[in-house]
């Protein structure tokens, strides 16, 4: 018990020290990257509810991120001349995104697997195309000069200083995101261990048996869509305030796939795994950046465009991981047993079943 308390305090200290250490060792841009990693962690946890818990393959998840971001951008920027506060916009973002989630869910409930994936993908694109073409969203130019997030009199965008440390906005955002990520982790954890969470796994595993046990699969799936979307909306609100500028280009299908990769790579349905997947995939492309400097130094010429090269390395890394560890890097124990039935004790019980 006591060692658990110490472990908790130690991790808390590490989390607090992380941006300072990162700043000292790797530089300020990496602190910004940490902030993005946290945003992705929130997104991945939201998608994990839909894909990991309820087993519904959603390839248009970024649409909800976009809904949250545009909501904040329109209601807290000079674009429409409105400057609503965060405490109003954060729950609103969750709610509006949840309604969009239900809107997507309702007509697609009869679909499964590949068909559902295709429809959700289309939905994601529809939202993005709307954002590109509407006047109220300022079309492809996007929305600029979005208000930084502000709580009470404290602006997260401004520079602050603490004990002689100069703390730019990226630090304040880091701590805000940490708190909200913790909140989302808590909700995810509670959900997976609840009546609804068990009902979701029942639907994922055997829909017919679930129905005949009296589960209203319609309502439960809608709820998964709406709840996952709400998390996406919250991340979107934060993203808009943090970034200060958004355009439809931030919400392409590639983003949806990236978030899905985070969930699958980390370990579907497992909270710690999903967070790890999100942080890894958010940081990995940046970690490959020095490769172009390396090329410049050795060949005196950059043969491969760094952006492309990064994506190539990234793709190779993903493929390798999926071949070696199909259950994800940090799966839930059960999932691992299922996929490695032949080389563990579960193998013997499967033989017994025959």
């Amino acid at each position: 018990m006591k060692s658990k308390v110490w472990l908790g305090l130690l991790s808390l200290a590490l989390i607090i020290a992380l941006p300072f250490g990162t700043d000292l060792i790797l530089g300020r841009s990496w602190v910004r990257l940490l902030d993005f990693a946290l945003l992705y962690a929130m997104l991945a946890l939201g998608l994990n509810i839909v894909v990991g818990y309820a087993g519904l393959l959603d390839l248009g998840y970024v649409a909800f991120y976009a809904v949250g971001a545009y909501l904040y951008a329109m209601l807290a920027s000079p674009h429409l001349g409105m400057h609503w506060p965060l405490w109003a916009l954060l729950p609103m973002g969750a709610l509006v995104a949840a309604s969009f989630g239900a809107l997507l869910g309702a007509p697609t409930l009869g679909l499964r697997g590949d068909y559902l994936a295709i429809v959700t993908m289309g939905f994601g694109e529809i939202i993005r195309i709307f954002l590109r073409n509407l006047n109220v969203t300022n079309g492809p130019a996007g929305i600029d000069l979005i208000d930084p997030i502000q709580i009470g009199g404290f602006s997260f965008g401004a520079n602050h200083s603490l004990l002689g440390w100069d703390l730019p906005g990226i630090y304040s955002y880091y701590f805000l995101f940490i708190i909200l990520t913790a909140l989302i982790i808590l909700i995810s954890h509670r959900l997976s261990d609840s009546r609804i969470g068990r009902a979701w796994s029942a639907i994922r595993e055997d829909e017919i048996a679930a129905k005949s046990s009296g589960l209203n699969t319609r309502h439960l799936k809608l709820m998964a869509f709406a709840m996952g979307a709400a998390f996406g909306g919250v991340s979107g609100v934060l993203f808009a305030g943090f970034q200060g500028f958004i355009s439809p280009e931030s919400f392409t299908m590639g983003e949806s796939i990236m978030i899905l990769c985070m969930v699958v790579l980390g370990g579907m349905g497992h909270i710690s795994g999903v967070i790890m997947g999100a942080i890894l995939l958010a940081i990995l492309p940046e970690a490959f950046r020095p490769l172009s400097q390396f090329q410049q130094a050795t060949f005196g010429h950059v043969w491969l465009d760094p952006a492309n090269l990064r994506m190539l390395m990234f793709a190779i890394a993903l493929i390798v991981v999926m071949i070696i560890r199909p259950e994800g890097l940090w799966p839930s124990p059960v999932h691992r047993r299922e996929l490695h039935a032949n080389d563990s004790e579960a193998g013997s019980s499967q033989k017994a079943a025959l």
Partner: protein
Amino acid sequence: MSSFLEVRGLVVRYGGIEAVKGIDLDIHRGELVTLIGANGAGKTSTLNALAGLLKPAEGQIRFEGELLTSTPIHQLIQRGLALVPEGRGVFPRLTVEENLSMGAYTRKDKAGIRTDLDQIFHSFPRLFERKHQKAGTLSGGEQQMLAIGRALMGKPKLLLLDEPSMGLAPLMVQTIFSVIRRVASEGMTVFLVEQNARLALQAAQRAYVMEGGVIRFNASAEECLNDPRVRSAYLGEES
């Protein structure tokens, strides 16, 4: 005797193909009735129509005098119908205990659920021994037991069983059938769809024999066991 479950003129169609061509069934309270027939005779289609998994094209299904045909499937359990689907249909990643409590999903009486859970663990000691194990790690027979137990947790009045012997070792089939007999002897009404005609007829009181989407005949299980047509077609004996 008034019918507990009454089926009149049931037709099930898949596109243009008629799988069930207007059949009548009657099940009385407390009976164990079986529906036997070859592969493709329309047995599972009949059962799926009763369980609400597919919409009948024509016909009526009445349960305790009330029309069932438009009841959404997830409400059937509250009306008293529980299906044990073909191929076991347990939730492999939930524990045995969680699987069972999923069967009581629609019930609100916490104390009653507790009692029934204890009751099921009492009747199925193997499930009790494995209650914290994931259902996916159980043997095929244990999963079938679990599926039956889960259906019973919904406190049904009528238990619908789809091919409970499928894919099980012969010894396990015997065990499952003794479980079914015991459940029936405790007063549960059971409708059993089964390909293993001999076992089904030995367990049941009454039988319907289905062929090509229609009911060929309907008699007491004993008569069926002695009927030369049944003996040659379904029990593999020379007539």
